[in-house]
């Protein structure tokens, strides 16, 4: 993911008619595609509030409408500059749709533009209360690998790992539930125009939960891979 976007959105001077223009995609003056605006985030692109509950059919509808206008197919016979701009606009649109459509990517993106996810910060460390369980899991995984290599008896280890997988799956479900409730709180705070402090607190809680989620998910994936 890129740098967190800043919300400065100065009016552009259109490359084609040289008028000042405010359009997101097309010049309000001459109708040509405008240069990509770095300051526009995905929510703004879809004319949506920065909330985590998204009405998927409405999102899709907007995506298709914008695709219809921005897709490079429309500009095959246009100037090279317009072809390039359509490529930039339509790829941004597709990236935005791909991100907002998926609840986890959406949250991650929101945390990014709210300045919560700085580079390197989401390097995953085991949540302290999980340490013991993770330690046991890694041991079992190691034993399984050794048993596989030496042709030893696998059945007992596999049963143990399957139990561990189940336990982590359950924790994953729990994290997801907590994330959903935090997301609802975020949306309510947004509607209530809550103050900066309350917002920051929610964001940091969601950030923590998201890190925990991806950590557990990795564990589950690793176990599944070894069990296959």
């Amino acid at each position: 993911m890129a740098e967190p976007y800043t919300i400065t959105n100065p009016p552009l001077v259109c490359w084609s008619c040289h008028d000042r223009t405010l359009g997101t995609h097309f010049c309000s003056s001459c109708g040509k595609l405008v240069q990509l605006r770095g300051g526009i985030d995905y929510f703004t692109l879809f004319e949506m509030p920065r909330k985590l509950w998204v009405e998927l059919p409405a999102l899709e509808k907007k995506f298709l409408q914008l695709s219809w206008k921005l897709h490079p197919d429309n500009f095959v016979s246009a100037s090279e500059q317009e072809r390039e701009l359509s490529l930039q606009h339509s790829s941004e649109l597709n990236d935005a749709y791909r991100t907002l459509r998926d609840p986890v990517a959406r949250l991650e993106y929101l945390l990014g533009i709210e300045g919560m996810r700085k580079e390197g910060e989401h390097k995953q460390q085991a949540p302290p209360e999980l340490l013991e369980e993770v330690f046991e899991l890694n041991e079992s995984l190691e034993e399984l690998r050794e048993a596989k290599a030496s042709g030893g008896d696998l059945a007992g280890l596999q049963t143990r790992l399957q139990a561990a997988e189940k336990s982590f799956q359950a924790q994953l479900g729990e994290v997801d539930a907590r994330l959903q409730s935090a997301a609802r709180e975020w949306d309510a705070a947004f509607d209530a125009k809550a103050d900066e402090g309350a917002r920051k607190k929610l964001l940091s809680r969601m950030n923590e939960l998201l890190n925990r989620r991806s950590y557990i998910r990795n564990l589950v994936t690793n176990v599944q891979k070894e069990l296959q």
Partner: protein
Amino acid sequence: MARIVGIDLGTTNSLVAYFDPQTGRPQCIPGPHGSTLCPSVVSLDPDGSIIVGEPARRRLLTQSERSIYSVKRLMGRGPGDVQDELKLFPFRIDPASQNVIRVRLGERVFTPPEISAFILRELKNWAEAHFGEAVERAVITVPAYFNDAQRQATKDAGRIAGLEVLRLVNEPTAAALAYGLHERQRGKVAVYDLGGGTFDISVLKLISTGEGDIYQVLATNGDTHLGGDDIDNLLQAQVREEILRLHQVDFAKSADSVQELRKELIRVKHELSAVDRATLRFPLAGGAVYAREFTRAALDALIAPVVERTMKPVRQALADAQLQPTEMDEVVLVGGTTRTPLIRETVEKFFGRKPHVELNPDEVVALGAAVQADILARGVKNMLLLDVAPLSLGIETYGGAVAKIIPRNSTIPASAQELYTTGVDNQTGIDIHVVQGERELAKDCRSLARFTLKVPPAPAGLPRIEVKFLIDANGILQVAAKDLRTGEQHTVEVQPSYGLNDAEVERMLEESIEYAEQDFAERQLIEARTEAESILTATAKALAAVPDAQLAGGEREKIDANVAALQAAAAGSDYKLVRARIDELNQATTHLAELMMNSALSTALEGRRLAEV
């Protein structure tokens, strides 16, 4: 706007089609042999000229060392990739091949894009002969599961053939377009496309909006080295083993008879799609004859593993689209190999519905390409195609792992930005390795490109370079870099791991133009001379049959003068002059042609030319 054609550059056959505004339907263009299929075979004549299509296919039997088929299997691949292929296909790879394979035909070597360009140029000629005007722009189809290098190689082939490739369209998506136009389908569609050498499965959603129809690809998967060729190879291996065992004849020693046997086995395979039994009688060196009866049941048992191999990508594509087989509203079969009954049965059973086979599975992809060409040509559209990237794009990170930056099945164009900085003071370059694939280690993925990002000297960690990776609407990667401190755009020279660079493509284009101009004039001359010959013969015949008395005064002299002029032109080498003289003689003999016919017919045939009577 000039015409844009749609081209299906296939493993076994290639086709060219256009959208006919009169009928509102796409249509394939036949070649000089009357068929719309151009066998994807290229042969180098001992005189140095290139032969393409049906005549080249015949040369597989007599001049196998100078001929090549299924070159699509080599597109965008390196010598190390094709070792398995070499056991099964008679490709003569030049040992000096580096990143790009070079194939030997007789005394010359060509790259796969050059060989494909010969096929494209042949189809371009078909289209030009059909329209009577130059054709310079095309939409070309590629297997949906083609990676970046294979797509780039296809685009290069187009350029070498003198075509501006406006878009590469995925084959199953093209087929869906053709079917959509044909059947006005709606809802969720699965396209199962098994061709000569490639397999694709695509899951699409067809949406009607106020502005028009949108074809949105939800997921795609496949295998770019799986197709009818594999069935042929299985049959061949079985039969060669039997012949060796029963008759002690080893085919490894004779390339020409291998091709003869391959041709016969393909016939047997095709017959078994229609009937339950087929026989083969194959005379061997030394007078013995190998005779055998094949049953469909035995063929089915032999090819079951090939059919099963297609089902894994099918399941993956559905899982990626988050759909169950029974949720599909339509299933479409594409590609000649789907004529095989076992495949039809397997697909029908899996999806629980009868697949569509109404359109000719050989032609449907080219027809769809023509529809897309029409959309691009008209600018104002009533249809939009949203396709996806078949493979995840990633960059190699610390320890050889891959960080996925654009996941597979992302709608294209798609992009991702990555921020880079330096690790040591005054570091001047950052090495970046871009790969494509789903595996976790870079060495298990397909290497697309390596490049070094230039960085102005500065303390470690201070430079901030943003690299933008963008997959365009053709599924081809573009890279741009921006120095965030200065706002300066860097150009990134990306050397493809398995492709031609621009200079090489340019040189091949120049070479091919020299050939092409010569070729074109020569071909036109041969055609004009043939036509001249037939009108001269017809005129002589008519003059002998019709008494001079029936001719008007001076008519005979006029015809004689035109005949002499045409003979003189045909002896020269200016095809345009020959055409002009043909027209003049046709004019001069209109009355003579009428006299040739009895009065009852003459009204019906009025205005016909002499050669047609």
